[in-house]
């Protein structure tokens, strides 16, 4: 029995992390999909990583709050840049996001090449792993998610384009460190794609059901098979998402509800 409780307690932080990420990413993902900018999270994550590496290149301390400030500042700068490009060149916004991703990734290589401190550890600084989420990270993300929910669900009409990009940058910078970039992308995009043909007022509920079910089932399968949890959850969500999409295909309107 004690081993049973031990095992369960391993999963709690991961499950809470998954739920917190879902709360913000499912609605954000619907926006991202309808704007046609699905790779924006990868670009923002790379820009945030570049911020940390650049800060250490200037000799700034990169532990704790220093890294957070550097990552957040860079992500915000990236978000503002994307707001500007969407206004100036809306027809190629997705391509510009792709270019930003490649530029931010290669800039890291260039900065590190001249940084004698090198840095395999630096590169991984922002790569979270869902199983070793710390309590401190959970608290921080919970506060952030609460703030997000207030802004998003109460004032979404008022925040405009800049507000969307800024909110997105802050949320993704935190979630990438919590669960890693694969899970961030999956939680953002898979529910949005799985439910885009459903009635607008049901998409959010179905999306939440899908992510919660996927984190639960994915973690359970990961325990049974002892495979890396992030990858298992990604596959679980993709398969359950496909199932959800096909199962609700015949009812584009909420007729059967």
């Amino acid at each position, binding site marked *: 029995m004690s081993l049973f409780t031990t095992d369960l307690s*391993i999963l709690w*932080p991961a499950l809470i992390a998954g739920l917190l990420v879902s709360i913000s990413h499912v609605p954000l993902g619907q926006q991202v999909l309808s704007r046609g900018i699905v790779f924006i999270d990868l670009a923002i994550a790379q820009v945030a990583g570049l911020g940390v590496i650049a800060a250490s290149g200037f000799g700034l301390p990169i532990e704790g709050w220093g890294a957070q400030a550097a990552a957040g500042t860079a992500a915000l700068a990236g978000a503002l840049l994307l707001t500007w490009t969407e206004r100036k060149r809306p027809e190629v916004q997705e391509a510009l996001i792709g270019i930003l991703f490649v530029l931010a990734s290669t800039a890291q290589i260039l900065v590190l090449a001249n940084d004698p*401190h090198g*840095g395999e550890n630096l590169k991984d600084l922002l790569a979270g*792993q869902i199983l*070793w989420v*710390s309590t401190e990270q959970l608290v921080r993300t919970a506060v952030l998610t609460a703030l997000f929910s207030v802004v998003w669900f109460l004032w979404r009409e008022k925040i405009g384009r800049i507000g969307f990009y800024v909110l997105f940058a802050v949320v993704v910078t935190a979630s990438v460190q919590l669960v890693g970039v694969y899970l961030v992308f999956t939680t953002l995009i898979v529910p949005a794609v799985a439910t885009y043909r459903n009635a607008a007022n049901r998409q959010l509920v179905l999306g939440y059901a899908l992510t919660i*079910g996927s984190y639960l089932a994915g*973690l359970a399968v990961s325990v049974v098979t002892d495979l890396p949890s*992030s990858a298992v959850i990604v596959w679980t969500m993709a398969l359950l998402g496909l199932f959800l999409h096909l199962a609700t295909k015949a009812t584009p309107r909420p007729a059967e509800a």
Partner: protein
Amino acid sequence: MKTFIRGWLAALALCAALPAQAELKILATTADWGALASELGGDRVNVYTATGALQDVHRVEAKPSLVARARTADLLVANGAELESGWLPILVRESGNRRIQPGGTGYFEAAAQVALLEKPAKLDRAMGDIHPQGNPHLHLNPRNIGPVAKALTARLVALDAANAAVYQQRGADFAARWAQAIARWEAKAAPLKGVPVVVMHRDQAYLCNWLGLKEVAAIEPKPGVPPSAGYLGQLVTQLGASPARMILRNAYNDSKAADWLSKRTNTPVVLLPYSVGGTDGARDLISLFDDTLDRLLAVKP
């Protein structure tokens, strides 16, 4: 869903509970220290290894069994010197397992038992050494394994007094076998002394130091950062003027860079296991060095 998980967890708990006796639970970070713990503990210990031989120990994928073992381990056998700094501190801190916290009897670091190579004389960021404590890949000099084994035996005795005699017996047995093996290896490896070699980066330093191999160049001087075009050009020119006998590549390194340089300079690549399990021949610590030497001597007659 909840009952589903509970069912699976209960089944898992049963499976895990069956073989578990009063064995000492050990979490080793690398295959090599895992192999040493098994040699010294025999059937009195249950060893879990965090990384496979072909994995880069700098990064680790979080598996449930790894977190579970961190929570229940009696002893953590780590390499230390920042080899696992990307993941181990978080794992240990979040495990909530008081026994394996740094400084306690359940926390063992191999690097603390020997003198490390490349330790900077003064700590200066501008010098740019990545490992301020020295080069962490110490297990590739078998003369380092002896002191680590001795210290680990003492730790096993301290943690599990009931089996003290067994550990001491096994420790003495291992020390004798190891001393014999070192004498055999050093006699066999005599022709390798002074042979010029190219390494991937600094992870072969202890092997070269032990065998007297002369490191004339490194393909990737900064781990994780691809070398520049200028550097590679200079490398080809340098090796054209004074050729190396072989390019050493570890089993976990990507083969592209070594193969590229091999073609340009007509220097053979020697694949080395680096770690227990890195090649089919390297099944335990003794065969790790047997296999390494066989591969090196196959090129240099």
